[in-house]
């Protein structure tokens, strides 16, 4: 017999913050049960967080000849959660020169995860 493993999540769907549980067999592939949700959104969220949590990356990079020394940037799509910290670390060595336009691609395929890092605003040269 294999043991049951329960993982806990806090639902972010609304301020009620239901406590969600996903139970599965140890080392098993399929979830046995999702508990604790009060609505469909919570159930979907628990499964998403359990299987493949995704996050948007937002940070800044250095910019020369601009109004501010930092340029805000974002990932064009969400990335796998476990990559967020590593992507931010990689972006610390990026340096761009003004002018920059919102949406400009600064890093095409960051850490090979298939997602681009783009400028989150215009910054004129000055």
């Amino acid at each position: 017999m294999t043991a049951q493993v329960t993982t806990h999540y806090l639902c972010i769907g609304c301020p009620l913050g239901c406590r969600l549980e996903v139970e599965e067999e140890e080392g098993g592939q399929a979830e046995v049960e999702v508990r604790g949700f009060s609505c469909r959104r919570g159930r979907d969220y628990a499964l998403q967080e359990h299987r493949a949590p995704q996050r948007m990356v937002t940070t800044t990079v250095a910019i020369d000849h601009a109004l501010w020394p930092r340029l805000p940037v974002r990932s064009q799509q969400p990335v796998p959660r476990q990559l967020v910290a590593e992507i931010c670390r990689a972006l610390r060595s990026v340096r761009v020169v003004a002018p920059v336009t919102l949406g400009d691609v600064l890093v095409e395929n960051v850490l090979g995860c298939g997602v681009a890092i783009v400028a989150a605003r215009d910054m004129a040269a000055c």
Partner: protein
Amino acid sequence: MITAQPRHLRRRYDVVVVGGGPAGLEAAVAAQNAGAAQVLVVDREPEAGGILLQCIHTGFGLHRFGAELTGPEYAQRLVAQAQGVDIVADACVLDVDEQRRVKLMTTASGIATVDAGAVVLAMGARERTRAAARIPGTRPAGIFTAGLAQRLVNLYGLMPGRRAAILGSGDIGLIMARRLVLEGVEVAGVFELMPHANGLNRNIVQCLHDFAIPLYLSTTVVEIHGHERLEKVTVAPVDSTLQPQLAQAWEIPCDTLLLSIGLIPENELSGQLRLRIDPATRGPVVASTMECSRDGVFACGNVVHIHDLVDFVSAEAMLAGTCAGRFATAAPAPADNVRLLPGENVRYCVPHTISTEREQTVYLRTLRPLESCELRLVEAEGNVLYTKRLRYVFPAEMVTLKLRPAILQKFHGGTLRVELVPRAFPGQGDAAEPGFPLPAPDKRPGGEP
């Protein structure tokens, strides 16, 4: 956008907007659309955009633009639509007087005065500081409000320190906890006086849980240590009356303390103008047109009351701008005829008066969390004029109520009370009610985990 040179300001504008954050920019465009030909926005920062410029995370604009934007993206959309509005940056408004003369100062050309047909106050808010929280101890360097740290990190790339503790679990503190970790700063924990977190669950999960940052509820900073630089803070659990239990205190070594303990509307100018101020919101008393207690002076955004969503700031500012534009072009809206008062469980409601003739939106905040309750409009004699069922209300989340004129047509009195009445629980929805799903009791007090 036309960037006005301070030297070439006109003598008179139809509408002058003080503050170029989201509130000011939306109001300026709305004023122009309402017929005001000459509109000036004044901001003391080097560019318009307000606090959004440093809020680089996503979460803005779902209502306003139907897209999840970062703060700078939201700001850029507003600046782009402000074509034809004069914006003067690096200019601080010093005074607005009864004749609506606006005095402003710039480094480039000193002091200038412009006349305004109508004025819109959109100065935003400032952060509560250590003095407001009365934290005892020494006065070393290393203590920042969370928003200041956000500005240093996100606009200037300056790190406030190496190991930080954060007091207060408001969204700004949570977002800064993640931000610091991503920039290589160690975060010892977030300490929250109340038994529940103040920020969105989304931020609890994505800023704290994702990075294993502990959240200590019912815990506060009781002493600050260090001479030149902060060396450590003493934290202690609090009891149900919020009194620290010093016997159970412990120490957190850190060189940085961030305070995320709330925002206060920035109302120096309103005070100088002797506008009526609501002690609950700490912002001006406003009519349903967002007009303050002096003719032709309007207000919107965080200067009126603290908003949690910039999208609501936009909506309120469009109304203020439209009414200011109409006032300046001699078509003011008819006056209000009903006073709104906060009743049971309601901390405040805005606007302070409404009209039976128009559709309007009322914003209110609850005093405490309630699950399953009823929002009621009650007449002076106790008759309930209107009810709306709500699944839940939380102090950190503003409640909005759209009031159609039809609701008020049966009403002939002068005052309405806004109440939040629990439905399901006989225990009056007390936060300590067993079974009440409070967010994330991550860490209970009782010493180092």
